[in-house]
């Protein structure tokens, strides 16, 4: 299970909306029980509506921040601008870390839909997302 505050959820949605027409993306920092403590928004360095890539400098800072604050980089979020919030074959192939939470925001409909997945050996499992006020 992934636990997000409503403020973090809003930050994720805002990052994805700001990135339009491109996909938006960022990292999740938190504790190993899946509780997110910080969102690290990233520029989509792929600069694309169909592909995302986290800015490597954001990745470096996130790992250092996690070390300093005794947190972990828990996973990544990105948006699908015109499709359902489910990992594409590319998302699955490029999701090599079985410990990560892969959050996908679909902006196809209003309101936006946010879902989280685990990907282990290219097998996708949806997981519950708990939103705290």
């Amino acid at each position, binding site marked *: 299970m992934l636990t997000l505050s409503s403020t973090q959820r809003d930050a994720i949605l805002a990052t994805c909306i700001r990135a339009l027409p491109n*996909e938006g*993306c960022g*990292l999740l920092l938190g504790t190993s029980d899946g509780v997110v403590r910080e969102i690290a928004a990233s520029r989509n360095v*792929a600069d*694309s509506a*169909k*592909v*995302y*890539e*986290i800015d*490597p*400098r954001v*990745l*470096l800072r996130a*790992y250092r921040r996690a070390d300093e604050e005794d947190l*972990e*980089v828990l996973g*990544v979020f*990105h948006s*699908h601008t015109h*499709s359902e919030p489910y*990992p*594409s*074959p*590319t*998302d699955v192939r*490029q*999701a*090599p*870390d079985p*410990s990560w939470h892969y959050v996908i925001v679909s902006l196809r409909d209003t309101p936006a839909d946010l879902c989280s997945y685990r990907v282990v050996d290219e097998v996708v499992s949806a997981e519950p997302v708990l939103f705290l006020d």
Partner: protein
Amino acid sequence: MAAVLRIPTVLRPAMGGESVIAVEGSTVGEVLLKLTKTYPAIKSQLLNDDGTLHRFLNVYVNDDDVRYLGGVEASVTNNDEITLLPAVAGGVW
């Protein structure tokens, strides 16, 4: 010369579970080549067949992305911190 290598979680299972190890080499290429000899399973994630950096691997020496320092030719000196960061990417291809 010994530098410190920080290993991301995704590569740790193939590298003995360590998060930080000491490495030897005067360039990034030397360091990575030695790693692939010790841990052959990770070679395809680090280097291309021609010895250049894999497209989806970011390597930092301290705060600097080695792609701007000559790639595998980037110098490594004593006490440098090398960080391997596989790219985080995807999309609706």
